[in-house]
């Protein structure tokens, strides 16, 4: 089980969170291929990845989590400050 340090609540267990997947922006005007990439193409990195989680059973806030998919280590948790804040590359 993962333990994620919520920016508001401190270290909490994974069942209190909901996984939000990778954040990515939508392009405003696109071809079918570009829309297919937006809708279906998700990063699948082996290593560090930027994710969003929501602490649904706690403060109900969304946060950015930098996690390693090879080790399950969590390297960083920081709040989402603005709707278009997708975080810096891992």
């Amino acid at each position, binding site marked *: 089980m993962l333990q994620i340090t919520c920016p508001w609540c401190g270290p909490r267990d994974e069942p209190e969170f909901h*996984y939000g997947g990778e954040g990515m922006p939508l392009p405003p005007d696109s071809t079918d291929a570009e829309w297919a*990439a937006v809708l279906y193409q*998700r990063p699948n990195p082996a290593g560090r990845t930027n994710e969003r989680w929501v602490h649904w059973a706690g403060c109900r806030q969304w946060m950015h989590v930098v996690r390693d998919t090879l080790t*399950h280590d969590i390297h960083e948790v920081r709040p989402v400050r603005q709707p278009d804040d997708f975080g810096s590359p891992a």
Partner: protein
Amino acid sequence: MPASQAGRRGFESHRPLSAGPVAPLERRGFCLGAAGLPLVVSRRIFPTPPTVAIRLEHAEHNPAFLWRNPEPKPSYDVVIVGGGLHGLSTAYYLARNHGITNVAVVERGWLGNGNAVRNTTVIRSNYLREESMPLYEFSLQLWSTFGQELDHDVLFDPRGMLTLTHSRGEAAAARRTVYANRLHGIDAEWLEPAEVKQYCPIVNISPDVRYPVYGASLQARAGIARHDAVVFGLARAASALGVDLIQGCEVTGFNIVDGAVRGVQTTRGRIAAGRVGLVGAGRTTLLTTMAGFDVPIQSYPLQALVSEIFDQVLPCVVMSGALHVYVSQAHKGELVMGASRDNYLSYAQRGSFHLIESQIQAALELYPIMKRAHVLRTWAGIVDMSPDASPIIGTTPVRDLYLNCGWGTGGFKATPASGWVFAHTLATGEPHALNAPFRLDRFETGALIDEHGAGVSAH
């Protein structure tokens, strides 16, 4: 004794005495109602599987090693990346159906290491979509002769599978799948709770539980096989037919010239290839990234567990989609249980314990008899999830490079058919009729094959 007979005899002994006789399937009431649809549909849109087994003249019966362990040659007609069940099956059918034996399977670990031995061995064909049903049904038919075909008993055991429902909506959806299956010549029945209890006596059908059983769909020809034996049988047969199975050989790059693949770079040197097939399951995107194109696959852990060994108490496979648990009993006696996949991306081959806890909670409500059982082992495999929960099989943007992935949580059952159609695709350069709909560009055209409802594990 032929393998298939051995399997059948074993099956008879699994049914617990307390289960009593099971009514012949013909006598189980199944009314199609006002629609007046025929009970038996003869239209078959899948090919007839072979009845003549190939003779494995070079395969010894009790050898020290089941397959050769060769050094990689500089060049092959076909290189298959990934030595899981689908990779082995592809190599076997390349040799068997197409006479292409100058083939290498390169595997970064060892055979019988990854998802090939991390699955829960369920075999069935009761999918919903008209693209899926023929593919999985063809696979189920191949399973029925697979042991004879490979001259290696894979313990295929068509003991039947119940898919329980726990609400009126879920029951209606399950009946819809039953109708769809019958229209495609696939056996499917609807059982009321009392019939569920008769078919599988340990299921708790009390209405006084959180998720009472509203009935179940039954595929009587569904079942299980022994996954290790499938690895051994396929590897032995492919090796005997001339396929080089190269273990400890990780692909580190592709040699692509003018938009066509000409070989692979590996930890054991460069290997030239006329055609390359990627069968990397959870590691598919690591390969396609090296080859320079994207596929909509994400990799998640899917956990399973077994109990200690018991007498046979569970005469069939039982799934519950709503409760996210499925259970069967291995021939050896362990209760084999699977759950939902974990929610986060991972390559770590382990998952989170709270999923196991919730799957055990569901299992104990459905099968109170299991409350004294213990979890003996848990593990996870990394599954390759596609957006529509259907596989991707066919060509790629790189010429002579072909892809077979996206089987997600349900690949084991498809082992024979997946290899059959992918071998056809590799041999001819064109998809087989059965895998033609499963093309990579369906995510652009919108011709998705949505099978999210077909599995237990967020399929």
